[in-house]
């Protein structure tokens, strides 16, 4: 898994809980890399899973909730780190459409060994979009957090519902009118 996901995760945890929690989490998870991550490196997903598990115990918070919150944080970091991907899309739906066709294509060019998830987007009526998320990793919550971060980025309110699907999630996103808010 991309090192960036790890370094951002540690930054996220440190940001919200302090380095003491980061340190304790690493000690408990005891990852093979010793908790030393670099954004351009590549690390086993199991290390992240172990750290999330340890954090969940430490903070007494369900892991999906943690992952969801991290996803939202991560989107903000993406928009800061990779502004080029945000030059075209003007709203959440168009950005989500570009994830599979543009973002992941570029990621594979830079990291030929990368295994980004699949995110098939399909518009449903005027204000809806169905997303089929498929990944080799159980990170559906991360995906949901990223979608939420995306909506926040474009200043839109979305109603997100999902149900499990083979190898991932089937997600329905609906734009919520400002007046209804």
């Amino acid at each position, binding site marked *: 898994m991309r090192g960036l996901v790890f370094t951002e995760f540690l930054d996220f945890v440190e940001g919200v809980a302090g380095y003491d929690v980061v340190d304790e989490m*690493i000690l408990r998870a005891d990852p093979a890399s010793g*908790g030393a991550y670099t954004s*351009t490196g590549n690390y086993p997903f199991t290390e992240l899973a172990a750290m999330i598990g340890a954090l969940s115990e430490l903070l007494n*918070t369900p892991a999906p909730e943690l992952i969801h919150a991290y996803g939202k944080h991560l989107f903000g970091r993406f928009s800061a780190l990779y502004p080029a991907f945000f030059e075209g899309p003007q709203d959440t739906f168009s950005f989500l459409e570009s994830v599979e066709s543009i973002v992941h294509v570029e990621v594979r060019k830079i990291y030929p060994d990368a295994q980004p998830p699949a995110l098939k987007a399909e518009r449903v009526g005027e204000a809806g979009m169905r997303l089929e998320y498929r990944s080799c990793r159980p990170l559906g919550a991360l995906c949901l957090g990223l979608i939420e971060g995306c909506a926040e980025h474009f200043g839109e309110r979305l109603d997100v519902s999902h149900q499990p699907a083979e190898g991932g999630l089937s997600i329905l996103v609906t734009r919520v009118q400002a007046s209804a808010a």
Partner: protein
Amino acid sequence: MSAEFSPTPSCGEPVGQASEEPPSLTEAQRASADAAQEALRLERRCRRERAARREAERLLEEKSSALYEANQRLATLNADLETVVAERTEALRDALAEAEAAKARSEREAMHDPLTGLPNRRYLRAAFEKMTGAARAEGKAMAALHLDLDRFKLINDTIGHAAGDHVLLHVGRVLSESAAGRAFVSRVGGDEFVLLMLFDGDLAEVTAFAESIVRDLSLPIPYGASQLRVCGSFGVAHARGDAINAGALLANADRALYLAKGRGRGVVAHYSGALEQAIRDRKALGDEIDDAIRSRAFEPFYQLRVDARTHEVRSVEALARWRHPDRGVLGPGAFIEIAEDHRVIHRIDDIILERALGDLAAWRAFGLDIPRISVNVSADRLSQSNLLERLKALALPASSVSFELLETIFLEQAAEADFQRLQALRDLGVALELDDFGSGHSSILSLTQVRPRTIKIDRRLVQGLGSVESSGVMVRAIVEIAAALQVRVVAEGVETGEQAALCAALGCDELQGFAICRPLPASALAARARDIQREPAAALGLEGAA
């Protein structure tokens, strides 16, 4: 689901601290333990960050190596590409050079005559423009000299195209050498060349230049074992300043050439207003001749030939006359040259032959004994491909027709095919006669080539008899040669009884001339023939002389 993540520790106590502390520790001890704990955390953090940095450096190094290798591969690829580009550029340069050369070749071909290598008509136009500018700038006059070869067609038709090409190459060389530095030379048609020259205004300079070329062209051209002869005529036009105009100058030179051709061979004619009129007259006359041929206004007049000793009628010569609606009966001098020019002379020959045969049949039907009739045959007629078929169709009376060959030119350059044609005529029963014998420079040779039945001694030799000493000697020599070759001899142009007597004494077989009979129309001839047949000496007034 969207609830904000709140980092509340599960135990509600500071992370990493034991949930239960020994109550025995003092504040100072606790602070010291916290500090030690904090120091350990910092140490671990430092270790992790150092490890992360080393990892990052290793990755960086790895990326650098990969980049270096990629760069090396790119450099190799670049070098390969440069080689390919260089090769293609080289190939392209070669192709471009080839294309340039081809362009230059085709431009040259477009501007030059392929046979002689001389500039062609297109080049002439370009050169004209350039020279016009030079003439105006230098205040000079410009002359266009249009050369047409005389007798070229004859060589081409009778000896062959190879000989024709040989002549053209020779003429091209003569012109180039003569004109070097003085004039522009171009070949504008089969046997036509146009020269352009600038001159100070003295037309004599241009005339002298053209005449020197005419002289050079008249020299024999070696061709294999034999020699070819051509000559050329020039039509010259000139203009000065703003009056120089390509179309007009070239057209005027062409008109002058037309007139030059009409005046004979090897002529240099200059364009002028009078010339324009002469050309119009010739053109009009040409048209009239065409009309006359269509309306069969040409008819034979006849002159009797008699035996030199017995004065019996031996033959009649058919002479072409033109019964002109306004100008009366015209002799050959009025039309032969233009008819030759218009290449219609063979049609006149044809009309005369046909009508003469009709007259002969009529005379014989009325019991008049005319043993033989002779007609003049031009080289043009002789070279007509349908001549033999035409003669066969006419069903010539046996042993009664002679062809008088006028053109010694033809005989000088005749090829084997021509002699075969003469033989074919003999096979048809046509006797051959050589006209104007003694006037051409190769007459003796023609005796063996043509093997005529009869020769007709040129009137100038006959008329010299009695006054010019050498005439008698020459007539006697001709008679002796003819006798040796078993060729009959006719004395032409016999105008007096004395000449008739001398010719008879020198051994001529037959006499022809005003002393015997003036040219007469068919209707008048019969009467004259009967007179002579009845009482030859009296009718001819030759008693005294005989």
